[in-house]
């Protein structure tokens, strides 16, 4: 049985004409991607990365998802892609994130002034496997929180595979020194993490 390739589209036709017609059919103009297409492509590539980045940064997955969605909403409403969309998205998401955190911390200060005391008085975890994993998570969280903001963000962006150019642009750094700064940030993180084993 012939496949679709051999089925004429417009009934019977002389071989030469049919050949020309098929040739024409193959030469359909290539569709230029619209802004919407490019947005979808960018979203699919970067939503998970940005979301994971902010989740690791904040430890709040819902907040991370909300903020990243909002950044993409802003991008869509912009109607065109910026020159460096990845760096743009990181910057916008970070600004939104900071705004939310600032508002929230202000509210928290007003409403629950004793919150930090509650955190200190949390009971120690019971000794089983699940708790060991939880303990590791807490140490990672602690090590991340203790890093200076710039190092923390660099480390997390690099872990998500962002290019040095994007990292430099988003964090306002000299691109030529991103590698060395990353190496230092990684060492600082590891040191803090290892030291936390001795912590109560």
């Amino acid at each position, binding site marked *: 049985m012939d496949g679709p390739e051999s089925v004429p589209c417009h009934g019977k036709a002389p071989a030469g004409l049919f050949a020309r017609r098929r040739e024409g059919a193959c030469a359909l103009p290539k569709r230029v991607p619209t802004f919407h297409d490019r*947005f979808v492509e960018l979203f699919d590539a970067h939503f998970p990365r940005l979301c994971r980045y902010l989740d690791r940064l904040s430890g709040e997955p819902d907040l991370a*998802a909300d903020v990243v*969605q909002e950044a993409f909403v802003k991008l*869509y409403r912009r109607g065109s892609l910026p020159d460096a969309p990845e760096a743009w998205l990181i910057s916008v998401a970070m600004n939104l994130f900071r705004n939310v955190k600032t508002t929230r911390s202000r509210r928290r200060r007003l409403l629950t002034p004793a919150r930090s005391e509650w955190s200190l008085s949390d009971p120690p975890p019971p000794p089983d496997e699940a708790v060991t994993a939880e303990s590791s998570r807490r140490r990672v969280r602690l090590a*991340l929180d203790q890093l200076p903001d710039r190092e923390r963000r660099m480390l997390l962006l690099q872990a998500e595979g962002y290019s040095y150019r994007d990292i430099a642009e988003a964090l306002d750094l000299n691109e030529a020194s991103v590698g060395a700064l990353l190496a230092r940030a990684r060492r600082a993180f*590891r040191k803090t993490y290892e030291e936390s084993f001795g912590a109560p």
Partner: protein
Amino acid sequence: MHLDEEQVQRHLDRELTESAETSAREHLAACADCRRRVAEAEEEMNEVHGLLRLVDHPMPAIRAEAVAARARWHDSAWLRRAAGILLAVGIGGAVYAAPGSPVRGWVHAMVKRIGYRAEQVTPTPMRGPDSRIAGIAVDPGLKLVILFTSPQAAGEAKVSLTDGTEVVVRAPLGVATFTSGVDQLVIDNRGSLASFEIQIPRAAPWVEIRVAGGSLFLKAGAQITTNQPVEPQAPYIFPLKAPGS
């Protein structure tokens, strides 16, 4: 020459240029010390990435189409709000302007209640040779309507353009009451047969003279619109009848 920290990290992250990468590979092939440093850095990087994964949460299932739809909804919501406001303003204006509408009375009562008081001015004798002439001077602002409340059976408005900064209206003492409000100077001339002298600054952007709602004279910028034949340089003189009567 050994690889520095920047080069080692860039090599691991594939951020070296093609030629720099070639040079780095050549060096690594010959230098055990740098190979060891690269291996240690790679191990450390993998370890750190593994640790970071410990704090990950499940990724939310959000589709690009849903976010795009939200962005479009944002825009259309804004447009809907703007359209709603315009519609409300339009309806409010129509209700306010409808003949016999009680809304005008309510609005005026409310305005009075919240403290707005139109500046009520009774013509005071102006300094001049004739003490029987009274008048008012107001700043034309961006727009000023001089409104005669009633058409007159006799009497006229004599309008001249001046180099001054204020609109000046003069009339014989006691023939009218002047009320100056926002963008408006109301001349209550009921029962009057007198003539009024009006001076308008050339620099005033927009001044209109209306008699009982009909437009008699309009100065918009440098352009003058009237329904009366005028002579250049001469004052504009209009009977204070309602236009069209």
